[in-house]
């Protein structure tokens, strides 16, 4: 069975008049899977944001170290201050953990029930109530399949419209109905979250009465990509590196002129520079049969870093330069392997090279961090 990937999409609204959202979501990856922690701090604004941030940070760093869920919950339940008047904890805790094989574990503490969407049906994710350190916590474990969707919302979403457009607010069932409609079409996790938040914004008549967060996790086949950039230090390794690169499944990208020449030579396939695809900052792309994309190296990678968080630049504009194409492919992949050659390019020692051009190792580690923050698994191998 091919590995499943948990695609995560997050959308948020802050309470009207607040700059900071009192809900906090933290994504962490461990070899044992993805962990998503959502916390809703009591109230709104700075105080709520700090409480929620604390809760998510404690939970995710404990989980990352492999501390069992029960212990994590009891630590948080014990440390969380309790509001004297309302006798409830100052922040909620919602954990979704997905193993690489698709086993989902959900923990719900003082938060709305998660939604499970399978084959067009929306049901509450089954959880059992447990008493952990005197607090009632919902815990559920389920094996997920491809195309299953799990959605978690903060109570701002549940209460959308309360006392205004809707007497009792949108409610769990209302959201479930909306999810059924959205998920009837093939949609990405981010699209689902955004659609729910849009409705929520609508019910609040554009003036959200509470911080609102939607986290969608969608299980699908993992998409892989391998990026080869830079020649190996030792030219004797060229052949082996290209061989390993070609054996990788999924999309293949070569970034770097000299690297592209090596690949073309090793594969015995010609390298054709495409002069129709360039702009003043980014050199043209090239084509080698069997490789999905061939670009220039350092200038293109620097430009990718500028684009990676600029979805307008990447998707809206009709841009087809190497950096835009490369960014799109990276954003579509879940598992990214980077084969990075350490050979020093004499060209980059040129005094005419501008200072703002990041050197290769810097660019790659920044890129790795950006992609990981988007929930992707990124591995860099130097040779």
């Amino acid at each position, binding site marked *: 069975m091919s590995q499943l990937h948990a695609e995560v999409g997050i959308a948020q609204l802050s309470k009207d008049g607040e700059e900071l959202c009192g809900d906090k979501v933290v994504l962490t990856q461990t070899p044992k899977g993805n962990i998503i922690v959502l916390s809703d701090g009591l109230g709104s604004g700075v105080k709520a944001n700090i409480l929620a941030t604390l809760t998510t940070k404690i939970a995710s760093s404990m989980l990352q170290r492999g501390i069992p869920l029960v212990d994590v919950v009891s630590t948080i339940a014990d440390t969380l201050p309790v509001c004297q008047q309302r006798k409830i904890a100052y922040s909620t805790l919602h954990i979704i953990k997905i193993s690489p094989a698709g086993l989902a574990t959900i923990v719900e503490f003082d938060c709305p029930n998660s939604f499970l969407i399978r084959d067009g049906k929306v049901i509450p994710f089954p959880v059992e109530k447990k008493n952990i350190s005197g607090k009632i916590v919902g815990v559920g474990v389920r094996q997920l399949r491809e195309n299953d969707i799990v959605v978690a919302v903060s109570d701002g979403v549940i209460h959308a419209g309360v006392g205004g457009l809707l007497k009792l607010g949108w409610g769990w069932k209302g959201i479930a109905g909306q999810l059924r409609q959205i998920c009837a079409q093939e949609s990405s996790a981010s699209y689902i979250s955004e659609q729910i938040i849009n409705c929520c914004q609508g019910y609040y008549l554009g003036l959200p009465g509470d911080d609102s967060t939607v986290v969608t996790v969608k299980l699908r086949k993992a998409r892989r990509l391998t990026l080869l950039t830079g020649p190996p230090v030792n030219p004797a390794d060229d052949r082996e590196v290209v061989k390993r690169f070609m054996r990788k499944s999924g999309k293949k990208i070569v970034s770097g*002129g000299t690297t592209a020449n090596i690949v073309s030579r090793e594969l015995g396939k010609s390298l054709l*520079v495409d*002069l129709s695809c360039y702009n003043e900052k980014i*050199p043209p792309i*090239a084509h080698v049969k069997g490789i999905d994309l061939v670009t220039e190296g350092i200038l293109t990678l620097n430009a990718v870093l500028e684009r990676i968080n600029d979805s307008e630049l990447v998707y809206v504009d009709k841009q087809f330069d190497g950096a835009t194409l490369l960014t799109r492919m990276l954003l579509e992949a879940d598992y990214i392997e980077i084969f990075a050659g350490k050979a020093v*390019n004499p*060209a980059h020692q*040129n005094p*005419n090279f*501008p200072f703002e051009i990041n050197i290769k190792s810097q660019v790659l580690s920044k890129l790795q961090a950006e992609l990981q923050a988007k929930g992707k698994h990124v591995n860099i191998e130097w040779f």
Partner: protein
Amino acid sequence: MTMLKIEVCVGSACYLLGSQDLIEMIEGLPEDVKANIDLRGSSCLKACGKGPNVKINGELISGVTPDKLMEIIKYNIQRK
């Protein structure tokens, strides 16, 4: 009549040193002149420090400016 083969290096170093200006210059030439030019890109002509580099009919020329390239084109095309 044989075509004038121009290979412009568009590798990192040459690009920074202005090889895109060379391509733009050639693409802006009148159609009848362009008809005699076989323009290609190269990913690196292995003379990175001395760019922008261009190969004209197989011969490497370094430090090429648009003016210099224009002269070369004129010289070669008129000679035919």
